């Protein structure tokens, strides 16, 4: 199989032929005949200038193709073709999580633990991806940098707030952005962006401010994490993205969520929870969070989390280094909650999300396998069915 391409297309059923995109395109990749407005795959360089100027929502369409649709094919369409099933390709090649290859590869690796190609929840909002790229990043201003873990701890996790001013940055909960560390690598080339999950909801860290937050842990010798953790209010940061098109929140307020995380893996779940709190504050009994850390002082957002009513979110903490207590990991807590977890495995409106360090995958999956077996389910089959249905998501690193 040839290497698949991500092709930009325009939906002929939605487009009104105003040609604003054609006039905006800096490389003249967009053209039209009497029937349709079309994009030349040979010329389009994914600069995204045409996306915001479209008045209709017809412009932000992408297909992964082995052979790009020709102009003549596109001229003849009355409607967009479905995404073809590309057998054999991995997520990085055949998914639409990111258009840049490097970012797509990082996300594919993060999602690998789901056991197959990820799908978005059916009711998730449509994500915007790749609006800003390495060649044309957005510049954000740091407006806050707060330590989330206790001062004495060797574990330094920070809550970073970035403001985008007048630049649109349409992120959904669960998406990531890229941060470009300044400077160059050993070969003198600019550094590639590092991916960070957004930890605020779509309408901003503060509602209706054009800002977002990240949850970043300082890694010893980490080029980008040290850069981000040392940022000061007023500093400018180069940002790419947003990225990610499947690890998203279902819009259906009745959807039940099981969120399993460790450390900074809590970032997307903070976004999910705040979204639910802002949108449907009276919607109780739908969220379960299983959150692991060494101690409470090292659990990001421990204080704010305690304030979320139990009726709104059932919270289970697993601490592995509590003085005088045996070690608890998230998988142990899952087993303790087997009844609740089993009910979710058989509920067609329940969604499971796992986010954190790669090492957690194995234990969590073993626990889920046991719980499934306990209610007569074959875990692998159940997991694959949930994943195909957009209800099982893994993002680990």
């Amino acid at each position, binding site marked *: 199989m040839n290497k698949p391409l991500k092709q930009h297309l325009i939906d002929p059923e939605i487009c009104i032929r105003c040609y604003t995109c054609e006039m905006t395109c800096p490389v003249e990749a967009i053209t039209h005949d009497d029937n349709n407005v079309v994009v030349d795959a040979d010329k389009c360089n994914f600069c995204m200038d045409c996306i915001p100027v479209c008045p209709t929502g017809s412009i932000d369409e992408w297909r992964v193709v082995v052979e790009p649709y020709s102009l003549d094919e596109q001229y003849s369409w009355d409607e967009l073709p479905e995404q073809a099933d590309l057998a054999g390709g991995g997520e990085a090649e055949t998914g639409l999580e990111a258009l840049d290859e490097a970012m797509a590869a990082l996300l594919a690796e993060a999602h690998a633990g789901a056991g197959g190609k990820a799908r978005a929840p059916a009711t998730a909002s449509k994500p915007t991806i790749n609006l800003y790229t390495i060649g044309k990043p957005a510049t954000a201003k740091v407006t806050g940098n707060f330590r989330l873990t206790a001062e004495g701890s060797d574990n330094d996790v920070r809550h970073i707030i970035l403001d985008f001013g007048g630049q*649109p940055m349409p992120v959904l909960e669960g998406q990531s952005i890229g941060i470009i560390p300044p400077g160059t690598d050993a070969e003198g080339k600019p550094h590639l962006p590092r991916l960070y999950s957004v930890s605020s909801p779509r309408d901003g860290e503060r509602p209706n401010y054009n800002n977002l937050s990240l949850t970043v842990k300082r890694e010893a010798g980490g080029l980008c994490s040290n850069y981000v953790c040392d940022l000061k209010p007023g500093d400018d940061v180069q940002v790419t993205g947003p990225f990610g098109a499947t690890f998203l929140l279902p819009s259906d307020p009745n959807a039940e969520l099981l969120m399993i995380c460790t450390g900074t893996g809590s970032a997307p779940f903070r976004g999910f929870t705040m979204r639910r709190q802002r949108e449907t504050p009276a919607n109780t009994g739908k969220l379960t969070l299983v959150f692991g850390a060494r101690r409470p002082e090292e659990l990001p957002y421990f204080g704010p989390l305690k304030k979320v009513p139990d009726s709104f979110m059932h919270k289970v903490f697993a601490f592995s280094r509590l003085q005088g207590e045996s070690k608890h990991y998230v998988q142990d807590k899952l087993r303790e909650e087997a009844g609740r977890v089993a009910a979710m495995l058989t509920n067609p409106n329940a969604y499971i999300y796992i986010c954190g360090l790669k090492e957690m995958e194995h234990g969590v999956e073993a626990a889920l396998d046991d719980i499934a077996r306990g209610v007569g389910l074959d875990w692998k089959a159940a997991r694959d069915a949930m994943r195909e249905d957009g209800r099982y998501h893994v993002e680990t690193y």
Partner: protein
Amino acid sequence: MQDMNVAYDTLIPNNVGLSSDKRVLKALEKWHPGYINWWNDLIPDQFQRSMIYLRTAVSVDPKGWAKFDYVKMPEYRWGVLLAPQVEGRTIPCGEHAGQPAWQDVPGEYRNMMKRLIVIQGDTEPASVEQQRFLAITAPSLYDMRNLFQVNVEEGRHLWAMVYLLHKYFGRDGREEADDLLRRSSGSEEAPRMLGAFNEETPDWLSFFMFTYFTDRDGKMQLESLAQSGFDPLSRTCRFMLTEEAHHMFVGETGVGRTIERTCQVMKENGIDDPYDTDRIRALGVIDLPLIQKKLNLHYTLSLDLFGQEVSTNAANAFNAGIKGRYHEHRIDDDHKLTDATYTVWDFEDGKLVRKDVPALTAINMRLRDDYTRDAAGGVGRWNKIIEKAGIDFELKLPHEAFNRKIGVFADKLFDPEGKLVSGADYDAGQTKWLPTHADGDFIQSLMVQVTEPGQFAGWIAPPKVGIDNKPGDFEYVKLAMA
């Protein structure tokens, strides 16, 4: 001085360096309270206090001109935004073609230019006036939001023209700018300048037809002014065109959704005959023949806006390089039209005839032909909706001779096929060709306000996609309590 980003350091957001142009800044600040009063007096108070999910341009760079947020309309940042200056731009047409574009108004064309700007400027507030009461019967919050987006952008287009008047036309420019707020749509004493802008927009189907057909005339005028040798006018109009596209969208999808809902209800109730209008109307949807009648009316009213087919004024404006043709830069000719001819309609010996005239004098006709081609595209897409539903009916643009008040067809009676008919035949046919009072009353009876997010009045289908990728039940307007 110019910038891509919009400066907010003055009362008036702009990318034209207003803060260092004290004279113009002062003049605009003096004009500003009158504008705000005009706006506040116009739109019913409840909507002024509501939070509307609107887009505001924060930069003329493509990434920055569609920033969405909730805003109260009186606090909308109406600004002065010009498309970026193109280095080395030349006058695209007429006797000065190829010379550097003007950055100031050449004295000999001052009056002609001012008149074009005033006419364009006069239509912008007029349409807001015509549409002022529509929100009371909005079929959904989505549609209400779209109406207000159109309204605030028409307001910004007025600002764009007023800026040019203040900046380049001195004292009489200031007087003209004041008059743009003094005239009022439908007023006995001081009506708006063009006929079509003095009619009320009584219902939402009229609004959709107006944005499809009449705003499309505006788009064509902006297209030809965007080709102007007067660079600030060209840059202003180029940026306005990006906004105008939203108005085309509201019109095309609004009519399309009305058609879709009618077809859907007909099918659900086993009605195949589109002319079974009593039964169709009893189901609370607008029959396709009535949609054709509305189309006939709005298309022909809009054709009148292009003026006389043969016009020396239009020839002079083209020759002076003030106003080009549609997509002038893509036309492969001498751009001077020295010997070219163009075919226009004429009326000779009691018959319609096609006749070649000097192309220079047929500039209006050419723009109108471009307009008709552009307008026909959407009609074809509406017909696809009907065809998909399996209903045997086809919408058509009427012949351009039908129902005209300006040009060679005026004062003569034609049917929609373009056949000359007697007074008696016209009277007999008129109720089939143009909406009657009873038709208007019927449409009016369907106009009920729906304010539940995600819900739509029974006569119109929901849109296929939301604004700014928003989901179907998004609360586009947070209504203030009445």
